[in-house]
């Protein structure tokens, strides 16, 4: 009888989960398996219907620095991620500390205005900034002109375009980090600071021994989340520079542009390598946070 009950319960569970699983199988699982299969083939514009199995050739190509820019793009993506995360966290922390000043007037108004960039859809922000970085008519070069600095070719030079994308990404990403940190700061018990003061702590001591340790549990997940988002950034790079012929490419735009160049199997192989990197990140994160308890 108990066994029959258990069986019935199992059946019920599968009834509840199957519709979702069918869609997941079609949209998420099948494409990954199919990409894995394609990554061992030579499907491209020349072999669209009559592609054949080529083994590890695509993977060999990815990791040879002469046949593919993938390694360089990966290094650039790591630099992009580190630079952005460091700046986002430092600037957001600084802004949150200032916004958290005791008895400051208009706090709410400042806070609302400063989180506006977060509320604008990211593709619209990227397109607006693309206009603002325009060489002849963009607001940035006009502003630089007024300050007596010459025009900068933001969108045609590789390094400048990379800096422009970092600026846009900071503008878009700082607000979220700032509210998280501000929320963390506001939840710290003021008695801790008073206790520290009695012990003769100065401002730096208080930040180091009270603020940072208390913030960490709140801020760490937000940093992880932002790191993933930054590493997987697509909109900013693609909409503002289109990859600039490879000079501002990050891994996702690179895989996408390879697909656009009709190198289907090569693009699939890139996808698999990127997926592997992301899985490793995810597993490390799960270990660190002991998350994923099911």
């Amino acid at each position, binding site marked *: 009888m108990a066994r029959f009950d258990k069986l019935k319960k*199992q059946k019920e*569970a599968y009834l*509840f*989960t199957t*519709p*979702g699983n069918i*869609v*997941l199988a*079609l*949209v*998420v699982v*099948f*494409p*990954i398996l*199919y*990409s894995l299969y394609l990554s061992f083939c030579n499907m491209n514009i020349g072999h669209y219907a009559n592609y054949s199995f080529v083994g590890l050739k695509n993977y060999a190509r990815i990791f040879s620095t002469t046949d593919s820019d993938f390694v360089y793009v990966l290094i650039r993506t790591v630099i992009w991620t580190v630079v952005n995360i460091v700046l986002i966290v430092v600037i957001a922390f600084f802004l949150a500390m*200032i*916004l958290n*000043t005791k*008895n*400051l*007037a*208009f706090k709410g108004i*400042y806070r609302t*205005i*400063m*989180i506006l*960039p977060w509320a*604008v*859809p990211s*593709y*619209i922000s990227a*397109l*607006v900034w693309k*206009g*603002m970085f*325009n060489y*002849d*008519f963009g*607001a940035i070069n*006009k502003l630089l002109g007024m300050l007596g600095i010459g025009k900068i070719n933001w969108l045609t030079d590789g390094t400048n375009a990379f800096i422009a994308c970092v600026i846009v990404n900071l*503008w878009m990403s700082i607000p*979220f980090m700032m*509210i*998280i940190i501000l*929320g963390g700061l506001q939840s710290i018990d003021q008695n801790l600071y008073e206790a520290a003061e009695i012990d003769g702590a100065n401002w730096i001591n208080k930040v180091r021994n009270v603020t940072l340790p208390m913030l960490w549990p709140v801020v760490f997940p*937000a940093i992880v*989340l932002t790191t*993933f988002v930054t590493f997987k950034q697509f*909109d900013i790079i693609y909409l503002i520079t289109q990859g600039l012929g490879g000079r501002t490419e990050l891994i*996702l735009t690179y895989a*996408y542009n390879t*697909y656009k160049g009709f190198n289907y199997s090569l693009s699939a192989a890139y996808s698999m390598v*990127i997926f592997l990197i992301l*899985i490793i*990140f*995810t597993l490390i994160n799960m270990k660190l946070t002991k998350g*994923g*308890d*099911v």
Partner: protein
Amino acid sequence: MRRSTIAKHGIIHIFLIMCCLIAIFPIIWIISCSFNASNSLVTTDLSIIPKHITLANYKTIFINQPFGKWLFNSAIITLSTTALSLILSATSAYAYSRMRFIGRKSMLYVFLLLNAFPNILSIVAYFRILNSLNLLNNKIGLIIIYTGSQLVFTIWNLKAFFDTIPVEIEEAAIIDGVSKFELFHKIILPLSKPAIAVAVLFAFMGGWNEYVISMTFTFSPDKFTVPVGLAALTNNTNQYATNWPLFSAGALIVALPVAALFLVLQRYLISGLTLGGVKG
């Protein structure tokens, strides 16, 4: 207040006002652009208030561009995606939270890993699937892809919330002779309004703001979604000449409601993001 405090606050106010200007400058720039009679990028000075103010751009985008059609396409796709992903994820999440079955644990771990896979990387496979189903340049294809892409996140989020609802409530209902379906529909769902709000919000944003997939799989302007159409307006490489005033007007029409929604619901958004982030 002591004099030193006043001086300190003065400096802080100046600094914060500068930060606010940086934060809203691009927004002011497109507002100004959208009311500008001439293609404002062609002027050389940095005047924020246009010389000739006009509402013509807001009219032209509907008449000279299929903007109404884009809005319609986006609305259909977004609403369908939101409804579908909510129904599918609520039932799945309920089973993962309340029932114990073979494969439950391993499925949840697989979800965590799948969540790491950005759907842009599936583009080759999507192309083959849509092509063979004859769904390229078609709303249904996009709806299926968007729904599937939302599911992992929404299932995890809803499951985490269902876990917080005491089982005792259900046990009491079962004793009263309520069926499993009624239990889910009449007791669990009404109790889960905050979590459902988060799921709806994310599914809505996912569909309304999605750009890459729809750009890749729609080819004719009358099939475009809003993001693809707006991006086309800023490109001068295709049939559309770069038209910043029209782009600005369109961008404001779609961004204002979304931004307002964002600001009103930011508490939910943050809880959704951190919940999804921490617990997977």
